[in-house]
């Protein structure tokens, strides 16, 4: 007891010198792998992109609203091919350089030429040479063909400070080496490159000259520390002890209870757009049989998983679009846990001569609990049907590289599809159009010419109501054919310290847009 008192005394005594500067917060979320927003394109990247960079448009709020951001406005030609974006006047980068259309042109061309990161959404319709400067503030894009989600993917493209990036170009790398650990943007927060240590820490300081101004936020956060904390339980304990101000947004039921009992932290719940799905390789027997896939779809204990393991804190999502997005047909009930129906369908498949006695494999992302739990429930269900399912521990990097061809794609694997941009294209479009075969999003290798046609029409149609109908038709077919096992749509659950106010969730970036946050002390 004495020793503890001594330690505590010593610690408090020293902590006296620490005094949190007026508004410093510690954000316990993962940082991206590499900081170049044109190269890296994953969920943690959103945190960096939203704070260090700006796009012409930005998603704000929930449901996400596509808001003109750097751009003042835009125009589209009749044929839907020519898009003009005009910048707001007087915007400067963090180094004080004024932003012009040259920077916009440079940024889009750089992204398309690098062909990495978020370029996948643009390359099919936009060639680098078709991005051009009209005047100092206006940039023109000429698409190869009409592309409805074009505006929806615009927020993915960060506008870089072309002068700074070109200064750091080495051997024609377009500055990628330098930008991997530096910032060249106009964002509301400025990266301190000295503190950037991958997988360890990164610090941000507020950009007082951000173009949006700070009038909306009387108590903005001045400094943000983002340490890497690998384990969720550690993150939660750190929050409870006041070491950090936020966990990530993926807390489970076991954890929220712990936070809710605390005096200095709370849980914020927001309906998100991130669906969990068990993929099935539709071109590998026996998964090439509709009855077999239906059998599997009925053999998963949805309510056991959602209500018991996840404590009922997420919403069942029966098909390949988040239930809270447009384009979802109201009349599709989807599959439920029903072993009788499962048996029926498996018997039907057997009668049709489907060989289902082999050892099937389900790949999990070993360090994500939920994938393990889902796999084990799936295994229990299939076991009751006399089907053998083996669980294979795997990693994101490895599975996604194995989905490049049918043969190497696993029988089944588990993942989420998060919101990269808010358009059905982000989910159903890129998941089930056969033209995306070979990417992880289309790893079911689902092929149905009718669905292809519907999805392609929806991509070119510019009228949202008409698009919605096309997506609904495709959705019905895909669910009916049980292309995959869709489980739930995420409700983001984030532990926040009580100092944090005005946390604004958005499915894009999970609300890690620091500029809205206020701190009370």
């Amino acid at each position, binding site marked *: 007891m004495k020793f503890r008192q001594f330690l505590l005394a010593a610690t408090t005594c020293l902590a006296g010198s620490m005094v949190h500067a007026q508004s410093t917060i510690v954000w316990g979320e993962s940082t991206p792998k590499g900081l170049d927003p044109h190269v890296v394109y994953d969920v943690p990247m959103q945190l960096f992109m939203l704070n260090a960079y700006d796009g012409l448009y930005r998603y704000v709020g929930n449901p996400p609203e596509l808001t003109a951001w750097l751009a003042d406005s835009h125009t589209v030609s009749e044929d839907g091919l020519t898009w003009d974006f005009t910048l707001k006047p007087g915007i400067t980068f963090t180094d004080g350089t004024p932003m012009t259309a040259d920077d916009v042109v440079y940024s889009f061309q750089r992204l398309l030429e690098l062909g990495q990161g978020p370029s996948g959404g643009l390359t099919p319709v936009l060639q680098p040479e078709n991005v051009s400067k009209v005047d100092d503030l206006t940039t023109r894009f000429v698409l190869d063909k009409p592309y409805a989600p074009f505006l929806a993917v615009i927020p993915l493209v960060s506008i870089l400070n072309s002068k700074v990036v070109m200064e750091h170009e080495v051997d024609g790398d377009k500055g990628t080496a330098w930008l991997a650990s530096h910032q060249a943007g106009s964002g509301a927060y400025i990266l301190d490159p000295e503190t950037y240590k991958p997988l360890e820490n990164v610090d941000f300081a507020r950009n007082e000259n951000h173009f949006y101004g700070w009038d909306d936020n009387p108590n903005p956060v001045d400094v943000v520390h983002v340490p890497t904390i690998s*384990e*969720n*339980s550690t993150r939660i*304990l750190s929050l409870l002890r006041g070491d950090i101000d936020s966990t990530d947004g993926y807390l489970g039921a*076991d954890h929220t209870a*712990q936070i809710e009992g605390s005096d200095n932290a709370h849980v914020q719940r927001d309906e998100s757009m991130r669906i969990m799905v068990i993929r099935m390789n539709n071109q590998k027997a026996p998964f090439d049989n509709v009855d077999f896939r239906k059998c599997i779809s009925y053999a998963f*204990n949805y309510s*056991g998983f959602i209500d*018991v*393991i996840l404590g009922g804190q997420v919403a069942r999502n029966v098909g390949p679009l988040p239930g809270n997005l447009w384009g979802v047909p109201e009349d599709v009930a989807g599959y439920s846990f029903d072993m009788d129906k499962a048996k029926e369908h498996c018997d039907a498949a057997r009668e049709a001569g489907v060989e289902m006695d082999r050892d099937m494999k389900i790949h*999990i992302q*070993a*360090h994500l*609990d939920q994938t*393990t*739990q889902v*796999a*084990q*429930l799936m*295994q*229990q269900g299939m076991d009751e049907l006399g089907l053998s399912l083996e*669980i*294979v*521990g*795997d990693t994101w990097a490895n599975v996604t590289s194995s989905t490049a061809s049918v043969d190497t794609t696993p029988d089944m694997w588990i993942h989420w599809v998060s919101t990269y941009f808010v358009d059905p294209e982000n989910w159903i479009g890129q998941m089930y159009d056969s033209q995306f075969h070979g990417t992880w999003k289309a790893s079911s290798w689902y092929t149905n010419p009718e669905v292809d046609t519907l999805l392609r029409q929806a991509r070119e149609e510019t009228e949202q109501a008409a698009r919605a109908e096309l997506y609904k038709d495709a959705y019905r077919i895909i669910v009916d054919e049980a292309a995959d096992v869709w489980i739930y749509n995420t409700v983001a659950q984030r532990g926040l310290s009580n100092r944090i106010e005005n946390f604004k969730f958005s499915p894009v970036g999970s609300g890690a847009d620091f500029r809205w946050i206020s701190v009370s002390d």
Partner: protein
Amino acid sequence: MLMLKKFLRDVPAVLGLLIVVIAVILALFPGLLVDNVDRVNRGDILQRLKPPSPDLPFGSDDLGRNIFDRVVMGTRSALTISTLVVSLSMIVGVPLGLIAGYRSGWVSSAIMRVTDVFLAVPQLILAIAIAQILGRGATSAMIALAVTYWPFFTRTVYAETQKIRASLFVEALEGYGASTTRIMLFHILPNVAAPVIVRATVGMGFVILTAAVLGFLGVGAVPPAPDWGLQISEGRKYLPVHWWYATFPGLAILFLVLGFNLLGDGLRDLVDPRLRRS
């Protein structure tokens, strides 16, 4: 007989033997303690994360499975992996050590240089890399461990063989016209058996520990296997509230490895009095 008497007087070694024997019995007949061996991966999801009680001596895990049953079943997986790894390493390592120690010239130095390379980096690091490349799973972990463990046997056997080779009786046999294979098999091998057995016993403990690390890091056994390392890594996420989940599998590792180490120490004392403890 004398050896046995001496061994029986060594209380810790006998304790070690006892632990190992109990573990082997449990691995072969887990039904002695586990009600339904086939359902050890099944859980009642409504009973998840219950603290230890008479019904659930070690509590239940996040899928409502009986941790006690899974810890008992883990004995089998730990012993299987370690036995196979140690045997595989011996099959590769002992002959190589014999050859390298008996022959001289480039064969011998080639073998020993390769051994050096394998020993130039900590075992666990090589094992993780290999296991990851082979794809996760208990089999890959086993191969990875065997690939990194054989050099220890080669080293041990090499040193002993060289000693024996220098001795008079081998020269005599050679003069006698005995074939190399014969000398190696019937005269040298029995003489290196003792250190190899000691190495193997201690190696069992070492392999169990390393396999647990692989399981913990996610490159070893995969769910739902009742692997101890894996259970600790799963249980860790439920600390500190559900403390029992991560605690008991770790204790199981501790006991089994302790058993092998005590036994190994006892055997070492018997065959190699130079390192005697007291």
